[in-house]
């Protein structure tokens, strides 16, 4: 089970850009041996096929992480039981739970702080996409 912390910083920066929806970086990940990260970025952006790909290709932990970020009950429970500190706190930070972001700051995991902030923005945009304009805050 490969965690996000095992990847090189450059790859994580590319993942950040891919999360933005920048095709160039998505293709970079795909063509340079990181299809799981490309799929993860699309799964976070709401692509169901990408999520299935992660589960079907032995990257289930990334799939669960994506679901835990979305605050899906079973995925959050699975992450909590896994005992993986990074996954617990990173997914919590993406759900805007203060203890998650604090843990990332304490551990000086700057790249993941930026990534969590990006994911928060993506999730907020996704929520607004599903709402009527008068409910936007």
């Amino acid at each position: 089970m490969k965690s996000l912390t095992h990847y090189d910083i450059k790859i994580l920066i590319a993942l950040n850009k891919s999360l933005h929806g920048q095709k160039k970086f998505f293709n970079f990940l795909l063509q340079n041996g990181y299809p799981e990260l490309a799929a993860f970025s699309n799964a976070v952006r709401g692509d169901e096929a990408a999520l299935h790909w992660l589960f079907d290709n032995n990257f289930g932990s990334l799939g669960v992480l994506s679901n835990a970020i979305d605050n899906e009950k079973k995925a959050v429970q699975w992450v909590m039981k896994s005992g993986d500190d990074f996954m617990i706190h990173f997914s919590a930070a993406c759900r805007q739970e203060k203890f998650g972001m604090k843990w990332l700051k304490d551990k000086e995991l700057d790249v993941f702080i930026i990534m969590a902030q990006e994911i928060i923005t993506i999730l907020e945009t996704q929520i607004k996409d599903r709402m009527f304009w008068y409910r936007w805050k």
Partner: protein
Amino acid sequence: MEIKQIQNRFGKIKMLNSAAIFVLSFMLVFYLYQFFTIIPAFSHQITTIFYTGTIRFDNTTSALSADVWTDADNIMAIFGTAPVVVIIFTLLNLLVLTEFGLRLNESLRIFCYWNIINGIVRVLGNFIFGHIFFLWSSNLITDFLEISFPNAFGKILCVLAAVIVALLCIWATFGLIKYLFNPLLGYIRDKSLYNIALPSLIGVAYLALFFLIPHFNPNELGIFAMILGCVLFIYALVIRKYKHIPPKRNILAVKLNLPLIIFLLALFLVKIITDRGVLIYASLYRNYLTELFLVIGFGLLGLIALIAVAYHLYKRRKQKKKMLEEAKKIFEENNGETDEAFWGVEKHDMSKYKDTL
């Protein structure tokens, strides 16, 4: 030069380019509408005069022409064709924008977006303002169907229904913004301001000069107001929706699209002719089937030729870009250690100046 100065400079260039694209799209939709009003009128043997902003129909009643203006079917054919064509054109643009989205060139995306807005505003605006100002436009369809005439209540109902549809359509076009610019990159406010909001103001100022001088045109004035209202609404929604994304200013270098701007300024030459009116004469004693086939045939051929030329130019440009990239890659791979033989023969022996240089 300071970054802010660079930003402002490129912002102004972007604004002018986008304004030119807006005007081009407006003109395209306008002429499409006028063309597909004149053609059915011509096929019904009605003489028309094509002015800058309007079409005058020959409404003199004679034994032969009387039937044309009393039959609801004729009215539907003359005033109903253009809205249908513009709706199809709008839907085609919608299809292209949603299918290809961010993969398209930015100017093309903006052009498609303006085509959609102009298409909606043209069809509904002509109907609404036609009813309000009693014009010879698509409003006559509901008049002849006896929905909005002689009953004034029906007229108000028709206008209200059209206004509601217009508001819904404009609301729907806001959803297309995400196909136009990637909101997550943080440039969306900057890009909406410089590519949509401000260019529409400049474009409307240009179009006001074109359509409202010397003859006042209430229909076009209403359409300008609709466009500005639509843009304002969309821009306000963009700010409200994406305020959680930290804004960034886009400082990507852009070049002024001079050929397009010159083309649009040259359109004033067309205005000189159309201000006087272009008479399209149709005799009541002739059937124009052959002429129509010829016009439509040549028109289609011209369109196909234009698309072919555009496609050829696009392909050539792409090929050139690819070749340049390949050459750049070769240079980068060689890492500056290019074989001397690669550079060819030196014409002059410069070695004696070695110490002085």
